[in-house]
């Protein structure tokens, strides 16, 4: 299994500002995923990040709002831009467990964001 860390673990931000969340994996992975979990809700996929290519965004999410970097096979960042209170959520990164096509997906501990 993969060990995933995220920074920061939580933050309180003012509206209009931006926050960059980091995700570090202890092994090289091809695909990394970013999810949002709004309070009391399930997880929604924001985008998929492959190393060396542009991230692929799900419907309802755009690059200007959630820019993603994937500089190497063990690291990715998600930026939440021009934040509003509606962005208050837990943001989680995840990776495939290997073994070819998606087998098991492992998740980081999440970043809990509160926007005032």
């Amino acid at each position, binding site marked *: 299994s993969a060990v995933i860390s995220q920074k920061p673990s939580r933050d309180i931000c003012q509206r209009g500002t931006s926050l960059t969340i980091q995700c570090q994996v202890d092994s090289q992975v091809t695909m990394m995923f970013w999810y949002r979990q709004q309070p009391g809700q*399930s*997880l929604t996929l924001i985008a*998929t990040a492959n190393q060396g290519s542009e991230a692929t965004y799900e419907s309802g999410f755009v690059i200007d709002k959630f820019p993603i970097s994937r500089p190497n096979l063990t690291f990715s960042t998600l930026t939440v831009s021009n934040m509003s209170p509606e962005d208050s959520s837990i943001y989680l990164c995840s990776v495939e467990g290997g073994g070819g096509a998606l087998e098991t997906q492992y998740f980081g501990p999440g970043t*809990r964001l509160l926007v005032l």
Partner: protein
Amino acid sequence: SQQGEEDPQALSIQEGENATMNCSYKTSINNLQWYRQNSGRGLVHLILIRSNEREKHSGRLRVTLDTSKKSSSLLITASRAADTASYFCARHHPFQGGSEKLVFGKGTKLTVNP
């Protein structure tokens, strides 16, 4: 919506009892996974069940899959207070380049009372 539906949304039982959570979906699947989440923290993978499997066990967990009914269930036997968490099913959905992504259900919040 691609999301699956889980029921019940919330379940409260006494320690030692069994807990059953169900997950339904609308389209054909390849694999389906169950996850646990404690108090809004990261997700812990529990079990993956493939479309050609009907039942899978892991310790006190039993997962069934009925592809004809497009449903899956998670049974926790002899529950403990530490099992208190939210449980999510997630089905594999075809994605770009032959890969797959996970589509999560709405989850069941389980409370096990000591």
